[in-house]
């Protein structure tokens, strides 16, 4: 039996298009690689890796069982608290932003402005927000909460407005034709309809914020980040490793619970 061969015909124009695309991409990657000098590993690297591995085998259990304010359980709880509060703050603020960005609520022109504002917020790094808020409220968990609360608007506002834009407009029109005020329309037609999606997105953002909250401590905005970075910088590997392990475990458990709830919602 002969093989069936299907030949593709490619025009010269298509070849040129591909060469430009793939060649450009390859050049870009090459340009990137040439700019990253490899200076070899540190002279101390072997020792570092060895003590890192021994840190994995013998993590600092006394830190885990330290129930005071300096212990690991407190830092993890604080991280979770920052993530929860930050997510809650941003979910509440995101609703007006989302309404402002929804075409079917405020019209085409205003919604473009709203969408642009949300994009601006999304692009602004949360670590820098955290630094700004530290100067406002001082170092500590509240600065982290504010940073997460503002930064998350960028994502939640976008997802919320997409949910609002794809809702069934019949309910809204029914209320309006009965003479419902705009507040009544919002609370009795718009929000009840989109609330399962809103809650689901909020939970998803909570999972992301849990990860973000664990790095915010780096700049002094509370949570597990500060002790972790301090342990890594002072090469206290047994302590760093117990923090990483507990962090990975906590984040995984929260992910699991949250994604299970989300599956039940939508």
């Amino acid at each position, binding site marked *: 039996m002969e093989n069936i061969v299907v030949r593709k015909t490619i025009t010269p124009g298509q070849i040129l298009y591909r060469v430009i695309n793939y060649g450009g991409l390859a050049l870009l990657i090459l340009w990137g690689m040439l700019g990253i000098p490899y200076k070899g590993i540190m002279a101390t690297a072997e020792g570092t890796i060895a003590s890192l591995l021994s840190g994995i085998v013998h993590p600092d259990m006394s830190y885990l069982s330290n129930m005071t304010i300096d212990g690991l359980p407190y830092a993890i709880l604080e991280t979770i608290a920052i993530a929860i509060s930050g997510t809650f703050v941003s979910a509440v603020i995101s609703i007006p932003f989302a309404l402002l960005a929804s075409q079917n609520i405020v019209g085409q022109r205003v919604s473009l402005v709203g969408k642009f504002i949300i994009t601006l917020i999304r692009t602004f790094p949360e670590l820098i927000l955290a630094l700004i808020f530290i100067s406002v409220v001082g170092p500590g968990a509240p600065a982290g909460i504010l940073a997460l609360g503002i930064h998350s608007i960028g994502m939640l506002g976008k997802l919320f407005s997409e949910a609002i834009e794809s809702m069934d407009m019949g309910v809204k029109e029914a209320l309006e034709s009965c003479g419902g005020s705009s507040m009544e329309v919002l609370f009795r037609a718009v929000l009840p309809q989109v609330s399962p999606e809103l809650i689901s997105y909020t939970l998803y953002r909570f999972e992301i914020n849990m990860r973000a909250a664990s790095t915010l401590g780096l700049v002094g905005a509370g949570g597990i980040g500060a002790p972790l*970075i301090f342990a890594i910088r002072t090469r206290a590997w047994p302590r760093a490793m117990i923090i990483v392990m507990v962090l990975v475990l906590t984040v995984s458990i929260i992910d699991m619970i949250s994604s299970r709830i989300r599956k039940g919602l939508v």
Partner: protein
Amino acid sequence: MDKIVVPKPRNLRRNAVVLSVVFLIVGSAVFAGFNPIEIIENFSKGKRLLGRMFLPPDWSYSAKVISPLLETIRMAIVGTFWGALTALPVAVLAAGNFLKNPWISKPVRLILNVFRTIPAMVLASLFVAVYGIGPFSGVVALSIFTFGLISKLTYESIEAIDFGQVEALMSLGADKPNILRYAIMPQILPQFMSYTLYGFEVNVRAAAVLGYVGAGGIGQTFEHNLAWRNFDRVGVIIVISFVVVLIIDFVSSHIRKRLV
């Protein structure tokens, strides 16, 4: 005319859920010492800092921002490249519907999960201890971070492909590599490219802050100036990198829309 009143059903379970969620939110706010009144009272301090940063920023410094910014973009490109390259084969292993062997896909997924839970910042500071201060450590951290991100998204798309094409090839007696090449890859490649671009966007933002722990890029310049309290220069760095990130996001999301 009488009003029509629809009585709400009493729902114990719903109320319990609402109550516990409220308790969780209030509890964490109290635990973290979050006091909105205090924050509003402190707002004038923040205004002063913003004034020192942006009114006006030290524009003469902008020439010195360009080269670390290019380094940041380079880090993001190279990190995305290695991450995406390694993610594709691993995603195939992690997808439950190709090998159909839970003994491979389940452990691979578990490892991917662990990768995704370690923040890029922590990875970077670990690699700074091994490779020293500089962009190389940042690239290694970004590669691993991207690998975790893209492989998860890709294996989920592999599981969601149209299985008809696979079955068509199977009924012709094709083996696994051929099924992969002619039925699975063509279906997921556009999505994979789109995830790679998305990873690139995330990486540009991540690379911009990685320097804070010494892993190269604009973050390092940022940290220096912040430590020296040169707030007007910090303002320039924020403004310029913000604009660059915005442009990259815009271009990349435009391409992504065309891909999928």
